[in-house]
């Protein structure tokens, strides 16, 4: 099966700044593909090139098997949900959804039928005659998606559409978006700087940084097996240690961090003894205990003092100062409530499985 989107060695420069650097990837039919990156990483430029608002300096974009060079945005089988949705305030909801069909010259009765059906599918059956400003944030979102999907595009592009919503609604719309995508089976390409959106929604995620993809893979792969320090630091929370490789033993590296902490981690890629490295330990990988006897046997043990408790419900954590090195480390609190009475200043001990920590050769 041909992929719905093929991007082949696409380059885009603005003056001397390279926004997108020789990027190649494919998006399979019917999948939810996210591009995750910090602002300024080139993801918006990439999306605008796929939509046709800017043209690549080099390379080829192929959508649904058709090369897109020289095809203007209004002739591409691609629709886009804009960051601020860009619903037409001068039209009612029905006319917004009907706009694309009208432009295609579809018969009036056919338009009425398809608009009605589409609004029903996004659970807004009675919204036809409403003005855009009468809708809530979530409803606007659904109208924007309906307006695009009614045209049955090969590809739906979404440009951080949840960014403007408040947290509660954003959580809700995340689930709704995933369900909509599953129901329609349209290929979604979604760009965001919010890792939780990317992880929850996507089949595959590309982590983008400085015009390149650092890693493309399933959300699980990005989280458990980051391939680069950037991905390890950007996806999920992580404790980052700069240091040197004191010893290399098969898969494991002993890292002497610049703060004085010595830790073991799984090596990602070849690492030479004495090389500069970066090691990452996720807060949720470390195990916390008040008494050393409670820690699992056979793992390296550390002692520390609670610097501060960062209570945040299910994602609560403590900030510890390790006794030997005085280096800071963040550890997630277990959900059992066993540490509900933990206070700053308390002495605790912790450990982590070196297999679940990761170490990279530092970027030169």
């Amino acid at each position: 099966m041909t992929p719905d989107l093929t991007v082949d060695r696409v380059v885009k420069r603005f003056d001397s700044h390279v926004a997108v650097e020789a990027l190649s990837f494919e998006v399979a039919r019917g999948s939810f593909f996210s591009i995750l990156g910090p602002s300024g990483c080139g993801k918006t430029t990439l999306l605008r090139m796929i939509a046709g608002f800017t043209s690549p300096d080099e390379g080829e974009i192929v959508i649904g098997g058709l090369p897109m060079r020289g095809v203007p945005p209004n002739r591409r089988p691609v629709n886009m949900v804009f960051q601020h949705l860009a619903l037409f305030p001068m039209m009612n909801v029905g006319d917004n959804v009907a706009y694309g069909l009208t432009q295609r010259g579809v018969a009036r009765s056919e338009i009425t039928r398809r608009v009605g059906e589409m609004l029903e599918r996004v659970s807004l059956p009675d919204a036809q005659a409403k003005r855009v400003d009468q809708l809530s944030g979530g409803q606007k979102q659904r109208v924007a998606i309906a307006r695009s999907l009614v045209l049955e595009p090969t590809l739906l592009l979404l440009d951080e559409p949840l960014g403007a919503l408040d947290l509660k609604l954003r959580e809700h719309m995340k689930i709704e978006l995933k369900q909509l995508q599953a129901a329609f089976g349209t290929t979604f390409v979604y760009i965001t700087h919010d890792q939780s959106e990317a992880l929850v929604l996507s089949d595959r995620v590309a982590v983008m940084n400085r015009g390149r993809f650092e890693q493309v893979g399933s959300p699980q792969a990005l989280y458990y097996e980051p391939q680069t320090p950037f991905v390890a630091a950007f996806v999920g929370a992580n404790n980052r240690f700069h240091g040197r490789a004191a010893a290399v033993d098969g898969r494991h590296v002993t890292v002497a961090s610049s703060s004085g902490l010595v830790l073991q981690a799984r090596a990602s890629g070849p690492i030479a003894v004495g090389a500069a490295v970066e090691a990452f330990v996720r807060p949720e990988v470390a195990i916390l205990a008040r008494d050393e006897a409670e820690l699992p046997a056979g793992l390296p043990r550390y002692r520390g003092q609670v610097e501060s408790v960062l209570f945040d419900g299910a994602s609560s954590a403590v900030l510890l100062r390790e006794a030997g090195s005085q280096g800071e480390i963040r550890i997630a609190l277990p959900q059992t409530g066993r540490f509900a009475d933990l206070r700053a200043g308390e002495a605790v001990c912790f450990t982590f499985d070196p297999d679940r920590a990761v170490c990279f050769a530092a970027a030169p």
Partner: protein
Amino acid sequence: MNPTAGEGTLRARLLLLLLLAPALLWLIGLIVLPHVELALLSLRSRVAPRVYEFSLRQFGTFIDEPLYWHTFVRTALMSIVATACTLVLAFPIAWTVAKLARGRPRALLFMLCMIPFWVSETVRTLGWTILLRESGVLPSLLVWAGLAPAPPELLYHDATILVGLVYTSMLFMVVPLIGALDTLDDSLIEAAYNLGGSGPSILRRIVIPHAAPGIVAGCIVVFMLTLGNYLTPTLLGGKDSLWFTEQIYTQFITRFNWEQGAAFGFLLLILSTLIVWLGLKLSGQRFGDVMRRS
């Protein structure tokens, strides 16, 4: 009621009145009073020296004398045409300033629209006559280029009056249009394009509906300025320009028939009100919205 609170509101009201005083004085003293006087003037006629009585004779004269109401209709039509031409010419300019130009070029373009207004209207219009008269620059240029056998007289045509009126009105159309187009979110245009819209359909369905209050505001201002313009039609159209303000001037100054002049003035006021109202009705705009934009 609390006496201090009552005193407070009284003081607030007095303060408001004081703040509004200059505007109210201006409105009553310079607009309402003269118009009341004009209305009284237009509705009386002289039966003997210093003896006047109520009469509609002035309005009768207007209807009986074809020259007057021909001029009246002609002025209205020419003003509408001039307004339409100004709109068509100003729209691309406003679009360029509001949507395409950024930073310095934007300021520069805006300056270019302003520069003609640094010169007094009289001087500007006389400049046009220098350019266009038979022995002027443009006719000589036409002869030199071989486009005309002899220097043509470019002054004293309706087209010349129109050109002059459009030129004078341009800024008053461009400014509200820029205001209206500035607030149009670019992503709306991109969204329409993305949904398959073509240039003309986006203009018709997205840009014009959004800019409508600005368009109507510009049209009202330009129409009123044009309808009440005296200098440009007279200088560019000559003695036979047949502009209604000229008739009013003649009645007041040359004929010293203030009653007739006042009646004409009132007719012009009714005409402009009527056409503006009609324009608002036809474009489906509310006066309040439009005035907020201008």
